């Protein structure tokens, strides 16, 4: 996108038109991404009669704030939110613990077979999900874990390969001098992890928290396969059943959808610099 100038056109006007064109393209694309959000919000604030007006009202009048309360009366939406929040919390704890321990092991110890195991870890990133889905379900079913949160939480304590890889790369960039200095001072390997490596790795662990949060909050297939009891449903799973419950009340459904979107999108807006940087570099390295 380097600014070019030809001899015949004055510099100013060429720049000006280039800018106008850039903004035009930016806005056009933004419409595609933002209009559905607009439709969601405006529908969530409409009364049932306004819903089926033709042409549709651009701004609902009056605002039907009561839709947001009605959602909680029609379905146990509060319960779904608590369930999702619980799963997110446990998964975040599990991933942070597991990824930092495992990444520390891979980046700071010399042990027999380490490099082969690390290659295996990378290879598991390519294991197709569909192949392990059925046998994992059989395993958890035989353990009697179906319709509990165990299949949706325990795996987090074993660390996701992608996140371990990310944290390990980061830990590899922390100079070994720090470890050695601490060792001379008589620190144990545990102390080095908790007092030195763990604090320095905070930026990447924040990324682990964000990825895990969004993954678990948004997950649909896991809860769908493992949970039967509606009181155990997560937000995503609850939404999909809300839909067919009555002849769809779109205004209430959109209010619920909006609430489901708020946590991941807020998180994204708060942490976007770090998040987009992390994704970009992970993408390029991958």
């Amino acid at each position: 996108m380097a600014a070019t100038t030809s001899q015949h056109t004055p510099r100013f006007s060429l720049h000006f038109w280039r800018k106008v064109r850039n903004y035009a393209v930016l806005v056009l694309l933004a419409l595609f991404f933002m209009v559905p959000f607009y439709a969601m919000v405006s529908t969530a604030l409409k009364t049932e009669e306004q819903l089926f007006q033709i042409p549709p009202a651009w701004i609902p009048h009056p605002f039907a704030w009561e839709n947001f309360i009605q959602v909680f009366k029609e379905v146990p939406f509060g319960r779904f939110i608590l369930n999702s929040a619980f799963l997110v919390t446990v998964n975040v704890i599990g991933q942070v613990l597991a990824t930092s321990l495992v990444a520390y092991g891979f980046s700071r110890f010399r042990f027999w077979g380490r490099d082969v195991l690390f290659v295996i870890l990378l290879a598991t990133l390519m294991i197709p999900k569909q192949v392990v889905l059925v046998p994992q379900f059989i395993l958890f079913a035989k353990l009697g874990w179906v319709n509990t949160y165990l299949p949706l939480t325990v795996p987090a304590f074993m660390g996701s390969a992608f996140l371990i890889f990310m944290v390990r790369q980061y830990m590899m960039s922390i100079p070994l001098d720090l470890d050695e200095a601490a060792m001379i001072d008589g620190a144990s390997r545990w102390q080095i992890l908790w007092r030195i490596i763990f604090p320095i790795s905070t930026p990447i662990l924040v990324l682990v928290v964000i990825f895990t949060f969004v993954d678990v909050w948004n997950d649909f297939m896991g809860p769908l396969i493992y949970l039967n009891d509606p009181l155990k449903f997560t937000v995503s799973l609850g939404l999909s059943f809300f839909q067919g419950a009555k002849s769809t009340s779109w205004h209430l459904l959109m209010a619920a959808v909006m609430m489901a979107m708020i946590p991941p999108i807020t998180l994204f807006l708060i942490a976007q610099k770090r998040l987009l940087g992390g994704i970009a570099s992970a993408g390029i390295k991958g």
Partner: protein
Amino acid sequence: MTSIPQRINPLQRWRNMSARTKKEHLAGYLFISPWLIGFVFLIAGPVIMSFFVSFTRWNIVGDPHWVGLRNYHRIFTADRNFVQALKVTFRYAFFYLPLTTVLALSAALALNAKVRGVGIFRSFYYMPYMAPQVAATLVWMWMLNPRYGLINVMLGWIGIQGPNWLNDPKTALFGLMFIGLWGVGGSAIIYLAGLQNIPQHLYDAAEVDGANTWQQFRHVTLPMLSPTIFYVLVIELIGVFQTFTTSFVATGGGPMKSTLFYMLYIYNKAWVSLRMGYASALAWILTVIILILTLLILKSSALWVHYEAEKK
């Protein structure tokens, strides 16, 4: 590799180690043990098990019955839903992959312009990607509502009678494409990072040679970006073959099986009909298909992917 000592068996080598080295080995294993346990029980075990299960008839409750190749035989000769699922998935991939690549690239190029406020647009483009897929699907079901949805309302402005979208077997698959394309921000960000890695001096040189914007795009941007395009294409391809949530929520595979994605078919076999063996066989076939397609892209990449490092 000159003086390899006579091979010592590992046990002996272990005995010869100092206590400190032994401790180092053990500690290493201790730290990676969470992943190691997970690998054995959640990945390696299941992969091996899945392979054997695919030769059985098993509804989980009873014992598995060994049926040899019968599942595979049946899939390839007598299963019309398998053919339909393949058709749907390939048809979707055929239209969706070019569309998503063009849209993601355009978004990335737009975001790469050095104008004020571009950060806000970047957030706008990326936001839908963060939304839960179920939520995104429901929003688009409303957008695509034949009577009250915004898409058909907007088509009405220019005098077009919008189709029935998700209710019509001819258009349902294209309706679902909107949901996928809405989340294109994820790929766009990766393209953007790729664009920002292209050294400015290449554009300067092209300009000195009198290249116009299009020529710069064609001869500098595209070749320099081709490794990124390759990477994103493979990821998107795998994603398409695992499409599940959108069709499960929006159409349930209908109308008339026109959106019966392969993954949805696996789900139906495993969790609706409880045929774990058959579903495992389907999963392995899908894996082989994805593998072949990835290899094809990999082979073709020699023709169109340009690696800067290769020349040096």
